[in-house]
Structures are given as C-alpha cells and as structure tokens.
C-alpha cells in the first residue's frame, strides 16, 4: 500500500515514543506542521486501512505476564481448520503459517505461567498434534518497531 509523505512521517517519528501530555496529538501535529484534527483523522485512517494495528504500548512480555511461542505440525489440507482452532484458544495474539513440518506458529499469552501451561495443555489435547513449546531463554533484540524502508516499497 502506498502512503503519502505525512503518513510516512507519522510512522517514522512515532513508533516508539508517543508524547505523554494532555494533548499528545497536538504535540505530534506541531512537529509535523499539521493540525491536531488531521493527526487524529490520519491515525483513524491508518487503522481502518490496517496499516496500523493500534496506537499504544507494546508491553515487555516477560514482565507483563506469561507468553510463549509454540508450533504445531498440521496436515497441509487442514491448516485453516487447525489455525482457526488455535485462534479460539484464550490469549493467542500471533498465529502464522510457515514453510516447515511445524507449519503453524503462534504466541499465546496469559496472566501467569500456570494458566498458560493449562491453556496449552487443553489446546494440545484438542488438536491431537505434536506441539513444540519454545519459551524465550534470552531476548537480544525484542523491540518490534523498526525503520521502514519506504524506497524498497515503491
């Protein structure tokens, strides 16, 4: 999707530190040389076009609660069905098909490890598929924000 220059500037400048002030969108507007109303409308538009998922915090998983990367090996012809079942389990926030024998990869979150394991046990029993549970041992680079290479998208 092509974005205009102002949308690109919004993304370039505000992936990491949104102003924490009474009128944050006004502060952003002044930095970009547009009106507060336009900032709000552009953020709404970016969300409705599914370019921006939300405006807000990305929590540090290890401190915000429990989360775990897991993978299952689903039969190729049942991937959509298995993926839908995974999405129905509580706390699943990422779920991708990947090219491997373990072909569905998802992240499950829960308030604590005990609940997380419980939910994964239930899902594993329901799916009756081999499941890999891969907790993070150490994160070396975990900030999800990165600089967009707008040229490469042309």
């Amino acid at each position, binding site marked *: 999707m092509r974005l205009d220059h102002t949308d690109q500037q919004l993304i370039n400048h505000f992936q990491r530190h949104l102003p924490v002030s009474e009128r944050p969108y006004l502060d952003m507007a002044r930095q970009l040389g547009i009106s507060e109303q336009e900032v709000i409308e552009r953020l709404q538009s970016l969300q409705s076009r599914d*370019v921006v998922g939300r*405006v*807000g915090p990305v929590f540090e998983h290890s401190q*915000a609660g429990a989360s775990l990367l897991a993978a299952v090996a689903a039969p190729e012809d049942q991937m959509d069905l298995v993926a839908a079942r995974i999405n129905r389990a509580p706390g699943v926030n990422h779920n*991708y098909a990947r*090219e491997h024998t373990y072909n569905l990869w998802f992240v499950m979150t829960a308030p604590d490890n005990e609940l997380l394991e419980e939910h994964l046990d239930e899902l594993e029993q329901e799916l009756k598929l081999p499941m890999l549970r891969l907790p*993070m041992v150490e994160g070396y680079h975990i900030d999800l*924000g990165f600089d967009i290479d707008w040229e490469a998208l042309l």
Partner: protein
Amino acid sequence: MSRFASADHLPANGSEPGTVSAWGLLRLRQQLEQGLPLVPRPYFALAERTGLSEQEVMNAITQWQNDGLIKRFGLVVKHRTLGYTANAMVVWNVPDGQVQALGQAMAGVPFITLCYQRPRRLPDWPYNLFCMIHGTNRERVLAQLDSLIADYNLQQIQHAVLFSNKAYRQRGGRYASHD
C-alpha cells in the same frame, strides 16, 4: 499478580506512594491493551474509564516506560499491509558456548528485527537461536541472509529458513484483559 497491578512503585501526583488505586492501574493496563483513544485528550478519556486522574494515568504510563514494562509506546505498524510480505524466521543450531555472543551480534544487524534464544526440543527441533528478517520480497530476504552468513562466518552452523505465507492473527498481547 503482575507488577502492573501493583501501586506501590508509583509515586503519582505528589501523593504518597501506594495511594494510587491498584484496581485503577489494572483497569488502565486493560484499556491500554486496546490502544490509546483517538480523541484530543486520550489520557483524560482513560482516566474517566479507570477512575484514576488524568495526571495519574500519565504518571503511570511514564513510569511503566521508565521501568521497561512498556518497551515502546506508539504506532504499531502492520508490516504486511505496507508491503513487507516476506517474513522469514531463521533458526540456528548454535553451540551453547557461542549462542549469546552470536545473538548479541545479530541484534545489531539492521535488517534483523527480532532475535531470541530458545530451548532445543530434541530430536524434533535442534535450533536454539531465532532471528526474524522482514523484507519486501523473498529474494531480498535470502540475499540478506547470505550476507549475514558470510559476514559472521556461519557456513558451518545448521540453520533453517521458515518463511511465513499467511497471518491468521496478528495483534498486540493482551495479558490483563479477557478475549
């Protein structure tokens, strides 16, 4: 209970630590997981929904950022929509004694967007280092991977490239709120 629900580390609004409502902070966290309201005074809107004051909301968010509980606060971009359609998870079987150094080195590579150490699950899964490369097409990602292998002498390290071909779900973590 997680630290989010705890009020005792939050000196807010000049009041004594511990006076900010723990319940209000938990509500705030639940609300924030849905995103910041797109109204002129979003922190005031959050205050109304949580029973905190606007100042307490702002103090809490600032404090959580300083503590590292919020690792970033801003636009959460959906790269796939933008055209970053080639997303490869590259997994490596690195000798245990080298994994930390290699992970730290990879974290500094511009096109690597995530890098984690995870446990092996033998015999099915021998890989202990994960990195993510987001790119605009498969060829470009594979070229970046080739350069990574050459630059860090990884020719002898067993690896696998798992491109993702479909996102069934992609959203922020919800730890405090219910589905």
